[in-house]
């Protein structure tokens, strides 16, 4: 506990840095997964291909991806962009399946009747399908957010600033409190963001609250 009190500033800056890696990746994977999920859902042939590719992407160990991406993207090894792109890829791997499932959960009768009401394809997507897919999308987003926040820590092995550096440093110095702080702060951060997502979901989709 004394370690925590003596290092509040360090923990704070590591936490902020952690969020600056995780949040852009979470947002990007959500935004990119929507069109991909739509394609997977719309065209039967693409579903298996996209979902298998997403599954395989997830099987790539994170550490090599963090290291190899820089040479592909042309940034330095420690550059934050690499980490964000890598995390976005992992997030996409999880989120594409969720998005496809979410859009599939909107029943065909609903889609057909909104077409009959005169919605264009785009209008129907934003006004009908997306809101109805919301709850399943949110469930997927929550998984992505938790796993992304946890995964950020691996990039500390490359010297990228985030809560994972507390493991690396605590490991070398034998300070268990430091390692434990890193773990608990990561979990707490994940749970807080998760809670915010739930609250945001209730605000944006008030109709789901009644059902619970």
């Amino acid at each position, binding site marked *: 506990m004394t370690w925590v009190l003596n290092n509040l500033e360090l923990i704070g800056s590591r936490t902020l840095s952690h969020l600056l890696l995780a949040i852009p990746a979470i947002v990007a994977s959500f935004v990119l997964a929507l069109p991909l999920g739509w394609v997977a859902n719309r065209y039967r042939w693409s579903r298996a291909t996209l979902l298998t590719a997403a599954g395989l992407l*997830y*099987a790539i160990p994170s550490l*090599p991806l963090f290291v190899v991406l820089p040479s592909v993207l042309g940034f330095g090894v420690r550059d934050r962009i690499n980490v964000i792109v890598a995390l976005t890829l992992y997030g996409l791997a999880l989120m594409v399946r969720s998005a496809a499932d979410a859009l599939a959960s909107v029943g065909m009768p609903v889609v057909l009747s909104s077409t009959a009401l005169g919605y264009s394809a785009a209008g129907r997507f934003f006004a009908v399908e997306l809101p109805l897919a919301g709850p399943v999308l949110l469930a997927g987003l929550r998984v992505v957010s*938790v796993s992304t926040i946890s995964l950020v820590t691996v990039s500390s092995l490359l010297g990228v600033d985030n809560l994972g550096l507390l*493991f690396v440093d605590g*490991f070398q110095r*034998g300070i*268990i409190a430091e390692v434990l702080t890193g773990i608990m702060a990561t979990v707490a951060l994940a749970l807080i963001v998760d809670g915010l997502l739930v609250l945001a979901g209730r605000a944006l989709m008030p109709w789901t609250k009644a059902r619970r």
Partner: protein
Amino acid sequence: MNYFSQAIAWIADPANASGPNGVWARSWEHLWYTILAVVLASVIAIPLGYLVGHTGRGRGLVVASSGAARALPTLGVVTLVGLVLGVGLIAPMVALVLLAVPSVLAGAYAGIEAIDPRTVDAARAMGMSEWQILTRVEMPLGLPLLIGGLRSATLQVVATATLAAYVGAGGLGRFLFLGLKTQDYPQMLAAALLVVVLALILEGVFEISERVTARRLHTH
């Protein structure tokens, strides 16, 4: 992608293939760690999941704690348990089991939850005991979702088991860390490719078993 061809060449190099530190030995080791972690996780998570699914009690607690478990950074757990227990397989195994438990648990209870309550009621009306309902109705019907849970747990573990080498254990992580620390990126990429190949093989096994169970459920 020059690294790619170099990585393939590294794997194909017979000098890297055999011996206790060779590609074959390390791949087997990696596979063994993966299977062990998933089996241990299953021993913990399947009975618990069935209990929650069957009784419907404790669901909120299980969902919340598996959410927290998903957030556990594996690197941190490996480091922490390593500091306490020393080098070897125990620290990474604890971390990998913790990683696998939430998916298996979710598969186990969701499989039972997804069963039409009328089916369970019918079984009860036929005079089946609770144990019979669980073993003869709920477990077989819940199998596809359980296998799905085991599948995603396995995929996560096989990719993460590379961290075992961080604290003195083996597996494909050996190549990965050595490549990372000496900027030998072809070697590191080779390790990653081998992990993906292992994942593909395991995916294939699950694909087949999912099809077999689906066919069985339909022919009954």
